[in-house]
């Protein structure tokens, strides 16, 4: 059963094609991640799905409902956590939830009961009477997710759920999202953190400049684009220029990151390095970051061509 379907979706701002023909499907109960740098088009996709931004071209469906034609029905099935949290600073924690529940169509009593449930789930019960301004960043994010759950949505959209949080709060948010997933909720999230995508997502779309460069489970993507292992080269004795020449000559996929050359393999195999005299070479497990660097590098070259 398909929860979300995007068909050739385009978003145009003036002369910018922020989303440039994106297609993907998310199955019910799945956690799907849009991974990419700022400006890749992740937020635009989510805003279009939530009806916050007009779709320039293409179609988006949620549980079979066309977002363009039935936006109201779509939003009744959707919980949305925007990057800004959008909490109401003039109301306290509990009122934020209850007023939103009432806006969704719950009765005041139902809203009160549901607010207690989500406060319990996010362990915010003792902060129910607190002002929003008194909450830590992690609590604010969890309250925003709690608010998105008020209507018991089929699908939750999360725009960068852990951006700006300290490590402990991040893990807590992750645990709670994993628990939602276990409860059968479909999650569509964006992130620019590789570890977050790897930890939470069943499948990932790697995005760059408004396009999906590739899609798959994290292990699939790693194996396809970064091989089984990656090599980090520290120039030490030899010159950077010489290493660059040799890597180019061997047609290897690499990026210069700080003092390092990061070389990724492909198709399940590690890179075959030429003999780099004087340089220090270390092998490590390939990860999504290597995939991203490999794909984004290629994407950039295509753009320039």
């Amino acid at each position, binding site marked *: 059963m398909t929860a979300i379907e995007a068909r050739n979706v385009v978003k145009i701002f003036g002369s910018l094609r922020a989303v440039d023909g994106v297609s993907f499907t998310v199955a019910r109960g799945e956690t799907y991640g849009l991974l990419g740098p700022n400006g890749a088009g992740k937020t635009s996709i989510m805003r279009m799905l939530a009806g916050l*931004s007009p779709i320039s071209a293409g179609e988006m469906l949620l549980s079979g409902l066309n977002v363009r034609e039935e936006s109201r029905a779509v939003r009744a099935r959707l919980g949305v956590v925007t990057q800004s949290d*959008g909490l109401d600073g003039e109301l306290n924690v509990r009122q934020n939830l209850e007023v939103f529940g009432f806006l969704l169509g719950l009765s005041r009593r139902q809203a009160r009961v549901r607010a207690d449930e989500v406060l319990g789930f996010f362990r915010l019960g003792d902060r129910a009477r607190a002002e929003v301004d008194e909450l830590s960043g992690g609590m604010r994010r969890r309250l925003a997710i709690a608010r998105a759950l008020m209507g018991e949505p089929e699908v939750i959209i999360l725009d960068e759920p852990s951006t700006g949080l300290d490590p402990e709060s991040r893990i807590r948010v992750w645990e709670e999202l994993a628990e939602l997933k276990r409860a059968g909720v479909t999650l569509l999230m964006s992130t620019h953190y590789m570890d977050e995508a790897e930890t939470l997502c069943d499948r990932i779309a790697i995005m760059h400049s408004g396009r999906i460069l590739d899609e798959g489970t994290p292990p699939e993507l790693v194996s396809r684009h970064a091989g089984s292992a990656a090599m980090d080269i520290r120039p030490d004795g030899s010159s950077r220029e010489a290493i660059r020449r040799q890597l180019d000559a061997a047609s290897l996929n690499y990026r210069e990151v700080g003092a390092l050359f990061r070389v990724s393999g492909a198709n399940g195999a590690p890179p075959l390095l030429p003999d780099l005299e004087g340089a220090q070479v270390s092998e490590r497990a390939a990860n999504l970051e290597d995939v991203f660097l490999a794909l984004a590098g290629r994407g950039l070259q295509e753009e320039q061509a």
Partner: protein
Amino acid sequence: MTTATVLVPETGFIRWRSVHAIWWRHVLALSRVWQVALTWFVIEPAVVLLAVALGIGQLVGEMAGFGSYAMFVAPGIVIGTAMFHAIFECSWSTFERIGQSYYETALTAPVTIPEIVLAELLFAVTRALISTVAVAGFAIAFGWIPLSALPGLMLVCVGVGTVFGGIGLLFAALAPSMHALSLVFTLVATPLYFFSGTFFPISVLPDWLQPVAWAAPLTPLVELARGMASGELGRVHGYCALYVLLLTALLYPLAVTLMRRRLMK
């Protein structure tokens, strides 16, 4: 851009729960700061009313056809104060709510822009009504307005809320910054407060300025309020009421269009 036309089919129906819930949120937010709100609604207008009626009123003496100056000026001050409430709510407060992503969050629920605009106007009317009861109550206590005029004044204040709430929303939707937004007071609220027949009859203005003063959106409301207070309503008040309805009918779709442009990108 063509993209603005392809969003939610919003023309279909108004979901009253959206309007009700947003209005309730505003009432709740206001009630949480009631101590401060009390000063806006009671102390500020009381100071103005006392200063004008007892201070300037001593210099002016009788107004032909109105009795004392206080009786002439009180209905206008009731309306002018209500105007400030409506315009402040829908410009300043709305602008702040845009900045704090309040509407963005509301729009993630099954809510549409026309419903947001209606809720804002309804709350502007609410604030105008609270202000009217407070200020008119004061004037009634001093015998400047008869108690029987209160329902009529409240009815006029519904028009104050829709017209000046609507004007406030236009500024909130268009203003690029808080500084720009303050123009709504410099260019609209303050000039209207003084040139809409509140403090002196429009007939004393130079001939060339009189049509301008009559066209100003606050003037018909002040005229209606004065008619309600004196109990003498004539044909001119019919025209005034029509003008208020016309302004509301023009401002509402304009506010919806501009708010959509501001909130849907």
